[in-house]
């Protein structure tokens, strides 16, 4: 499968057009973005009730403040690693034949999707940064202060890698559409497992065995749990460097899997719906 070498100017054009497209339905997009903050309130209230019932005991080393801080940071991680509509979009394009555009034109599908996704995220952050800043300001009491520069740099790197991992992982699921055509059930399973094993629901330290070991062995923790632990200073020094290396390795692994799926998928492709 030939891969195009897209020039920076092409990247910029795709980025700019995606940005413009994203801003067409601005009201819907803004509303959708703001709605994502509603679960914060319910989650905080839930943990408040749990800790009141525990009367001062901790849960797997987490106090109420730690949990709220953890949950807020997980939201940031998810804002980078979640890829709404990526898998379904790819499978849909395979099903209805629209994907042939990328087989005919001198542009690489995965590269194109990556650029458009960066544009979508930029628009999302542009809208969400206000509410995020407000929520973090209101909840500043739950944090024990700003981490040092190295931790912050590690955190920023882990977020970028979380974005790339989320992208390649979900793109890979979408490309399975070359074989299954419909991937919604597969995606539902992935989302369900992801919800627990990425640390979205609760810190992975709370998981019993064998789930704790499973969570450690698979890449999902790098989507939300790992960046959060980095920010909270629970992973530092050599452990941080090692963690980032493993995270990068997973990114490369899924990028390669995407290429393989694309290569064999296109051979299998019969141009359905075309």
């Amino acid at each position, binding site marked *: 499968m*030939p891969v195009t070498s897209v*020039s920076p100017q092409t990247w910029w*054009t795709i980025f700019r*057009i995606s940005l*413009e*497209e994203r801003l*067409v339905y601005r009201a819907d997009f803004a509303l959708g973005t703001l709605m994502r903050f509603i679960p914060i309130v319910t989650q905080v209230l839930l943990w408040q009730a749990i800790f009141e019932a525990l009367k001062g005991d901790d849960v797997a080393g987490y106090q109420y403040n730690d949990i709220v801080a953890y949950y807020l940071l997980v939201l940031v991680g998810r804002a980078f690693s979640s890829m709404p509509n990526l898998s379904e979009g790819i499978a849909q394009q395979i099903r209805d034949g629209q994907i*042939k555009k990328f087989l005919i*034109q001198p542009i690489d599908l995965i590269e194109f999707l990556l650029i458009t996704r960066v544009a979508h995220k930029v628009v999302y952050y542009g809208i969400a940064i206000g509410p995020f800043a407000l929520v973090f300001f209101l909840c500043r009491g739950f944090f024990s202060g700003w981490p040092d520069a190295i931790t912050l740099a590690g955190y920023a790197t882990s977020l970028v890698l979380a974005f790339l991992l989320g992208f390649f992982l979900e793109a890979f699921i979408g490309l399975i559409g070359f074989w299954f055509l419909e991937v919604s059930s597969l995606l539902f399973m992935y989302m369900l497992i992801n919800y627990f094993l990425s640390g979205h629901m609760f810190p992975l330290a709370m998981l019993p065995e064998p789930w704790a070991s499973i969570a450690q062995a698979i890449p999902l923790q790098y989507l939300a749990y790992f960046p959060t632990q980095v920010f909270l200073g629970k992973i530092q020094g050599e452990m941080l460097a090692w963690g980032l290396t493993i995270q990068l390795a997973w990114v490369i692994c899924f990028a390669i899997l995407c290429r393989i799926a694309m290569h064999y998928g296109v051979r299998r492709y019969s141009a359905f719906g075309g």
Partner: protein
Amino acid sequence: MAIIEINGLSKTYSVYHKREGIAASIRGLFHRQYRSVHAVRQIDLQVNEGEFVAFLGPNGAGKTTTLKLLSGVIHPTEGTASVMGYVPWQRQIGYRRRFSLVMGQKNQLWWDLPAQESFRLHQQIYRIERPVFEKTLDELVELLNLQGLLGQPVRELSLGERMKMELVASLLHSPKVLFLDEPTIGLDVVAQHNVQGFLRHYQQQRNITIMLTSHYMKDVVALCRRVVIITGGRIMYDGSLSGIIDQFGGHKLLTLQFSDEAPVDLKNFGELVEVQSPRAKLRVDRSSVTTVLGQILSKYNLVDVSVEEPPLEEVIAEVFASVNGTHEAELNKQQVLSNASD
């Protein structure tokens, strides 16, 4: 030298064969039956540079599959093909920069944005120099009468305007070879006429090679000197438009104007097509036209008589019908005839 060369090209699809009913659906969860559909069988074809070739055939004849094979979208089951020296399904970037495929109503434009944004993206991905891009765009916009529409979101354009925009997008990089799959499908007569006029002018001006599939005979008559008829995945005919009538038009049409009422026994002379007394139209076997005409002239008084070739679309519909047989062919015949009368 041929710019497109196809030798023994075949494509067989494996299609899930589902039986009717809920029980069959449940059985299908565990055991699926597949059947082979031979979309294209052992096709040989050479197209020279600058030719405008029409691919005609009933639905499912293999026309679109052939274009998909030549565009590199799908791999063949067997056979070889070369377009401008490239093997299409290797999808080399050099090849992708030099051809275009337009599939009627398949959108390559960004739906929510003005077409000019999509064109700008094409400029980048095809690496078209800015002055060349602007000159080509101006020329295409003028030829297709699209002034003032470039800044309008694509979703707000009419079907005809969208099709024209698709054509602009596919021609911005000045492809040497263009594959057109039903470029006028769904368009009204005026829009069809505009697109035909544009394609004719553009092809003559640039001397590009075009392969076109269409159900509209008017497209074919207006644009192509060479016609390839494909049915059941096989090439049935390859030659000029008029040659189709010579090869497949086994009959002629006699229009007879009687001095009195049209006689009732006309069906003894041939197939009665239409009677509007005192006028009648008779379909007669090509070899017996003179004999039949002599018999009628000796028996009745005629005011006027004319002998015509059957309409092209009727002959083509019969070719389709002779291959497909049965009901489906009859449907195709109706489709060709109704499209021709649009």
